[in-house]
């Protein structure tokens, strides 16, 4: 930032408009503003900070708006105060304006109307202008408010950098001016991000997916085994049936048991038929059960039908006269028989009652349809439960028959087991064994099929859970990557921060040492300075020993100046040095040394000096570098100050 000009309007003791053009000439880079005590140097110095950052403490610094301007203003008329600054930065020209308005409410009182905020406009070479949005943020980017005190400072307080307990101020200055804060913010942010990732990851990565995969694998393996076993059982069943059939055939070929075998075949056929009938009856029962809700609802259907019938009997549904027709008669005020229908008349009241009892067309249709449906249901729903009862009786009878036929088969088998021909006994024994085995196999098949069904469901459930867990796991893997990245970035920024701070500290130390050696006067015995790791700014004497405590006020000021200029040069900040009362506390030797050397070290130097600060030699030192000079003149009569250009 390089300051070009400043315009004050009714600011503090500066009545009306006052302008200052700062020197921007590289060879004549010094602007001097002279002024006696109370002429407005400090106000002018503060105008920079107020205009750019809005900082003003009325309690300690008094009101901003010029008192004379308020005094001269008629009642209830706005009085405006503003500071406008024109500056260049990075090859662009900007105008910064801050305004404050007040209104005079009585001869001795006034009310503030609020501050305008910073208005920043970029002006191009061709004269085009562009308003900068978020002006304050933009300005923070050019010259942060935390850094500005090191460029706009009060010379009388400059030695704060070398007073006891100064380390915190020095560290803060280094961090602000060199923007180490940005890196530290990044470090803290990355650390916080890494912690968040870590927390999130902990809640997600639970090994659940692994457990689910093992469960599913186990279920799948059991399913494979069960299906294999089911196939084997079915084969065994087929084999057992075949063996039974072969034994039956062999028994049938024995003449003496032929009759028994035929009888057995007949009973078996009857038994199968009975079982099929029982299955059919059972299917019919199921079908009837699924339809029985209509009959189960019959009391409700009849109740609803009765209610609808009552409405119909009362003539409410379907309405004899349509709702719209009644409404039309009322609206027209005349009946179809030409009798007038006047509001309040018996005719009107009658129609209003009819209208109240009427129902909408939509509802009428719904009611009519419902009534029809319910009547149809009531009429057409058979006695489903009665049919179920009948089927259950049939089923019971069929089960009795099945029992009887089964018993008959048992008796036949028993008879053959005791037959007087050994071969028959043996064959029947074998057949019975195979039959028992067949029943056992059929039981096993049933259990296996049931187990397979359960396993299928378990696998389906596991698969769904696995898919959910995979999503979680995928997120966890992404989180792991993000965590790793955030941790590495945090470590890198951490190292970068330390390395950068250490490097900057060394560079400031080197730069400050060179500047200090240029500014320090011959008689001074202090030759070197050191900025330690804990940001302690130390001066070494000619014997290389710490000597900060022995410094005079002038020497402390030189040390501070060296430090500030070093910081600005290392940071590459393009900012002017604006110092109020720079030499107030300096004796002749340091004053001469500073005035001789400092203009060469800075891009732009603006000094607010009293008539006593610039003695002859000091002024001669600065003279070749002064590009602009002003004087602040205070008029005791009006209580106002004006700015006068001297060259």
């Amino acid at each position, binding site marked *: 930032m390089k300051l070009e000009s400043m315009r004050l309007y009714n600011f503090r003791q500066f009545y009306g408009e006052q302008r200052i053009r700062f020197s921007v000439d590289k060879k004549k880079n010094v602007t001097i503003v002279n002024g006696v005590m109370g002429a407005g140097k400090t106000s002018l110095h503060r105008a920079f900070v107020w205009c750019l950052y809005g900082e003003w403490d009325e309690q300690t610094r008094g009101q901003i708006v010029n008192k004379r301007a308020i005094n001269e203003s008629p009642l209830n008329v706005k009085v405006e105060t503003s500071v406008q600054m024109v500056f260049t930065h990075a090859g662009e020209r900007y105008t910064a304006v801050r305004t404050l308005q007040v209104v005079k409410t009585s001869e001795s009182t006034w009310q503030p109307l609020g501050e305008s905020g910073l208005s920043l406009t970029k002006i191009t070479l061709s004269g085009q202008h562009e308003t900068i949005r978020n002006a304050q943020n933009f300005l923070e980017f050019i010259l942060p408010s935390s850094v500005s005190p090191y460029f706009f400072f009060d010379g009388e307080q400059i030695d704060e950098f070398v007073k006891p307990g100064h380390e915190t101020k020095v560290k803060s200055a280094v961090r602000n001016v060199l923007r180490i804060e940005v890196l530290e913010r990044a470090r803290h942010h990355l650390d916080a991000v890494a912690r968040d990732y870590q927390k999130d990851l902990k809640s997600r990565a639970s090994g659940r997916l692994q457990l689910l995969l093992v469960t599913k694998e186990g279920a799948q393996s059991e399913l494979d085994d069960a299906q294999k076993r089911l196939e084997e059982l079915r084969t065994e069943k087929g084999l057992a049936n075949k063996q039974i059939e072969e034994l039956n055939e062999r028994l049938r070929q024995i003449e003496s048991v032929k009759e028994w075998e035929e009888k057995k075949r007949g009973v078996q056929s009857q038994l199968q038929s009975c079982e099929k009938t029982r299955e059919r009856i*059972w299917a019919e*029962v*199921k*079908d009837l*059960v*699924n339809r*029985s*809700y*209509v*009959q*189960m*609802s*019959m*009391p*409700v*259907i*009849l*109740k*609803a*039908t009765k*209610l*609808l019938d009552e*409405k119909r009997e009362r003539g409410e*549904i379907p309405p004899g006269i349509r709702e719209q027709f009644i409404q039309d008669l009322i609206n027209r005020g005349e009946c179809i028989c030409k009798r007038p229908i006047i509001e309040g008349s018996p005719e009107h009241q009658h129609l209003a009652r009819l209208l109240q009892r*009427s*129902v*909408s*067309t*939509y*509802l009428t249709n*719904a*009611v009519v349809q*419902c009534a029809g*449906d*319910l009547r*149809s*249901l*009531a*009429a057409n*729903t058979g006695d489903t*439960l*009665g049919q*179920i*009862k009948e089927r*259950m009786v049939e089923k019971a009878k069929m089960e009795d028959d099945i029992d009887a036929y089964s018993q008959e088969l048992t008796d036949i088998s028993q008879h053959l087991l005791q037959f007087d021909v050994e071969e028959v006994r043996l064959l029947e024994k074998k057949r019975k064994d195979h039959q028992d085995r067949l029943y056992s196999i059929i039981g096993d098949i049933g259990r296996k*099929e*049931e187990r397979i*069904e359960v396993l*299928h*469901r378990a696998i*389906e*459930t596991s698969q769904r859970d696995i898919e959910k867990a995979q999503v979680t796991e995928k997120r966890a893997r992404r989180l792991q990557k993000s965590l790793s990245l955030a941790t590495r970035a945090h470590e890198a920024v951490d190292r970068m921060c330390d390395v950068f701070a250490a490097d900057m500290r060394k560079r400031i130390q080197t730069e400050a040492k060179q500047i200090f050696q240029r500014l320090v006067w011959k008689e001074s015995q202090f030759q070197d300075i050191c900025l330690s790791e804990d940001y302690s700014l130390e001066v070494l004497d000619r014997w290389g020993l710490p000597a900060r405590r022995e410094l005079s006020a002038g020497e402390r000021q030189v040390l501070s100046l060296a430090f500030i200029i070093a910081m600005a040069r290392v940071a590459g900040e393009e900012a002017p040095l604006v110092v109020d009362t720079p030499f107030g506390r300096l004796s002749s030797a340091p004053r001469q040394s500073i005035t001789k050397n400092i203009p060469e070290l800075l891009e732009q130097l603006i000094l607010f000096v009293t008539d006593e600060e610039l003695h002859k030699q000091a002024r001669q030192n600065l003279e070749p570098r002064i590009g602009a000079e002003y004087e602040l003149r205070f008029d005791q009569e009006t209580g106002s100050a004006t700015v006068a250009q001297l060259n």
Partner: protein
Amino acid sequence: MNTGAQATRRDRVYCEKSQINIYRELAGIGESGRKSAAGANAAPFRSLKEVFLAAACLGMRTGKQIPLKQREDLAMLSYFNDHQDMAVLRSIAIAATGQIEVLGDVNQIVTIAEEYANGGFDELKRAAWGVALPLQRVVELFLGYKSEIPKVPQE
């Protein structure tokens, strides 16, 4: 006066969330929503709609109308045919409210049926869930009500 205009006509029927798995078992439907071969034969009902209608009838008969606390999708309303299933639900709504105006509001008709199904579900569950021969148990349950059902005078 009801104009018949519906704000948002619902398209599905709900049950209590805690009941959905039992509904499925009674209809022989696996967790995946498919008919299970073994379940379908053993289950007393053919579909979720029939379980719902049976539960609603039982609820209405015992006078238990319980609003749903946490609802779960049960079936699309379009599965309920108009002249029989919906007619039964309408009759329940008329009988429950004593008002014919309820016929103008499908949402209210279905909500009332859901509440009665919720009320009747426990009885159905006690009879037919987790027992051997569930169809046999449902038959016994239904036949137990037969004497209470009036005979319809034939025209």
